[in-house]
Structure formats: C-alpha cells, structure tokens
C-alpha cells in the first residue's frame, strides 16, 4: 500500500514537471505590451476612406494579365462593424509616395502588376494621383516605341492634372 502511494505521488510529480511547474522563467524589463494586439486589430477596422477607395476601381483584363501575388479577397460582408474603441493614431505629416512604372520589352508593369491596356492604366494613374505621389518611369530594356508612348502619357497627365513623374 505504501509502495502504491509512493508510485502515485511520483507519477503526479512527473506530470507536474512535464507541465512546466518549477521551470525557470525569463523576466522582461517592462510589463508593457511588446505588441498590443487589441490596438493593432483596431488598425484593421475599415474606415470611411477605405470604402471610398474601392469605388470605381477597375482591374486589368484578366485574360491578358497573370495572377498578381496578393490573394483575391471576397467582397466585404454586410455585417455591421462592432463599435470598438480605437487607440487614436498620432497626427503624422503625409509621407511622400513613389509609384513605379516599369517598361520591360513591350510590357508595362505598374507597382508590380502588368497592365496591357494603356487606357485602363491611364484611368488608374488618374485615381492614384495626389499631392504626395510621384510616379517613377523605369526603362528596363524597354522597346523604344512603348517607352515613348508611356513617356508621352505621363507628360500629358502632367500638363492636365499636374501629375508628378521622374524618369530613370
């Protein structure tokens, strides 16, 4: 009986050791959150400007364009967003933004995605244009006529809507 009791207590002790009891712990210098996931998830909630950005957005002709790297996401659900207190972000000055247009051979890519249709690309550039954005045109062994066409397009947009661009 005594032997059984000892065996039982030993089994409990082994289980507790496996459970990590008595194990050394490392302490952090501060109790503050290394990443505050509640606040970070607040950043993920959609605001009014996130909805406005989607209206009227056109995608390139799917039959001519390879699948872009980011996954296709489904449309937002009709479920109303629950009221959440979001940690207000500090007021930061608007960061300058550079968007790249690369011409390689006869192919034009805009921010990585190939755009076979210049009219649709023009519409996209008009939508993406704002005060802090500069478009950078990159000649990556481009076919001369394609590069000239792209350069003319940017030049026309500069005259029309003061779009800013640089060439490389």
């Amino acid at each position, binding site marked *: 009986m005594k032997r059984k009791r000892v065996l039982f207590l030993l089994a409990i002790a082994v289980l507790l050791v496996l459970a990590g009891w008595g194990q050394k712990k490392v302490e952090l210098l501060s109790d503050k959150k290394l990443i505050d996931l509640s606040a970070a998830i607040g950043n993920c909630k*959609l605001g009014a400007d996130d909805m406005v950005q989607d209206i009227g957005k056109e995608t390139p002709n799917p039959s001519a364009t390879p699948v872009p790297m980011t996954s296709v996401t489904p449309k937002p659900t009709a479920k109303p967003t629950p009221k959440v207190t979001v940690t207000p972000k500090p007021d930061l000055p608007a960061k300058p933004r550079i968007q790249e247009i690369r011409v*390689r051979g006869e192919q034009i890519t805009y921010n990585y995605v190939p755009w076979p249709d210049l009219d649709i690309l023009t519409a996209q550039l008009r939508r993406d244009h704002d005060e802090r954005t500069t478009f950078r045109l990159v000649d990556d062994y481009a076919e001369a006529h394609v590069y000239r066409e792209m350069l003319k397009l940017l030049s026309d947009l500069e005259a029309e809507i003061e779009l800013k661009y640089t060439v490389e």
Partner: protein
Amino acid sequence: MNKKRITAIIMALCVCLSFCGAGWFDGTKVMVDTENNKVYQYRTADEIVSEFTANSKAAKTKYNNQPVLLYGQVVSVDKDGKNLTVTGLSNTSLTLECTCERSLRSTAKTYQTGTKVALYGSISVGLFTGDVYFTVDKFTALPASALSSDMYYLKDGTEYNKRNATKVTINNGGVEYYIPSTWVNDKIQHSVKDENLGTMEGYQYVLNKLSPADSVPESLFVCYFDNNSQLAFAGDSDETKLIEKAIVENILGNVGIFPTKRVMTYYGEEYNYYDGVFKNALEAGDGYRCEFIFRADGEDGIVVVLYVYREAKHLKDVLFLTRFLEVR
C-alpha cells in the same frame, strides 16, 4: 499492471495536460508552413549548365537541395517515364538527370527529344561523381513572367518578382526583408513603436486593407526583440526558448506548456514556430489565430514574425516574406 490501472493513468495524463493548454490533440493545420510551400527560383538549364561547367564546386554550394523552376529542352525520356534527361536550349555541354515519381511518369512520357520543358523540382549533386540530378515535383507550362532569376514561384504558380519588391530593414540594418510595393503606404504599413502599438521595433502590415478592402482583420508583424534593452536580466540572453515563451506570454497573455517547434528550412535557416490564439476582449467570437516565427539573432535578440488572422487570405505573401527575411 492491469488494464484498469493503465486506463486510469492515461486519462489522468490527458486531463493534466489539457489543463496545461497542451496542443497534442489539436489538429489545426500549420498555415505558415515553409517546408510544404517551397519557393522555387526560375532558372534556365543554360544558366545551370554554364555555372556547373565554369565552377562546379561553387555551383554545388549554390544549388544543392534548392528548389528551382527549371526551363530547358529534353534530350531523352525513359520508356517508363521514370527518368528524363534535360539540357540547355543553347548550352548543351552538361545534362541534368531528372527523376519523376510514379504519378508524374505518364506526363514525362509525352515529352520527346528536342521539346522544351518547364519543371518544378530540386537540384542535387552526386557526392562522388559530381553529376547533377533533378528531382521533379511537377511539370508546368512556362509562366509568361518567367524572364529572369528575380522571379520566384510557389508550386501552384503564384509568382513573386523580388526585383520589384521593396526592401525594409530594422535593427539598424541587421534584419532585412522584402514587401510588395503595394504595402508601402500609410494604410497598410504601421510602425509599432511610433504609433503606440507596442514597445518592439518593427511594423504591422494591415493585410485586409489591401485592395479591395476586407472587413475581417488580418495582420502581419515583423519586429525585433532586443535582448539588451528588453530583458530584466542580461544573463538570460542565451535562454532563447524561455525568451520566446516570455514574448508569447506578453503578447497573448497565456501560453501552453509545450515548447516551440524547431524548423530547419531547405534554404539553410532555422526558426522556432509557435501557434496560439488571441481573444480580443472587445470582440465576440473565437479570437484570432496567431502564428509566431522566431529567428534568433545570436544572443543579441530575436526577430519576431507574427501572423494574426481569422482567415489566412494573404498567406502566400507571408510565405514569400518569410522566405526572404535575412538576419545579418
């Protein structure tokens, strides 16, 4: 020992472990699974042949056991489709012996001498002979984007142009990783420290706001835990696993008893992986799945890659980022 006693001990073990948050019986699939989602670099057989011909030792170091999307031309095919010999389109001084598993052999048999072929697979080099072998994972049509070695692919054809990606550094350049240029804007990229999202240096990437915007939160964090400034005792800097446990406890508020899973990658790096759940006190529901990848920076610190989601819609972007993250 009788059956009843054995059953009682096993049940006691299960109860004890379940109280301790054990995940032994958790069948949840690992999503950020670098080993089953290899990133293949596009290379032509001409390039491989040239490199091995010029300097076989250097080429072996570069390519041995590396996944490659290979493009070349067929020299010969076995009658049963088990072996395929491939060489360059212009440089035919060397051949690659390609081996196909049973499920691929019927496809292999459809190729004839001189036809062009694109193969997902991995290169290996004979230990004594120096012969170059290629184990085929999949036959594919050559993607239109396969123009240079800057192009990388997952086996399902998802592509990644490393040249067009934007390099980000943290920890004074000690950590380097690449993000798609579409992530470089205020809606997506947030500084954890500057925007009071935490005390670690690094960034939050709000993936659900990539176009078109999605209401289900999905975030990726890439941060650096500095042992020198964030540990209470400097002497703990070599206790990597315990530091990782402390990090998880700090972020999630709880952690199971089992250690992180160690992963040795095919690209020569190693990391610890931990899978947890975060329940936001302000929301109902099951919470968010949190997959941690910890890359040690010696005893100086730990790179923390954290993927938080309910639906892993941008998993492929996370896989590419993880693949090309470097700790210098």
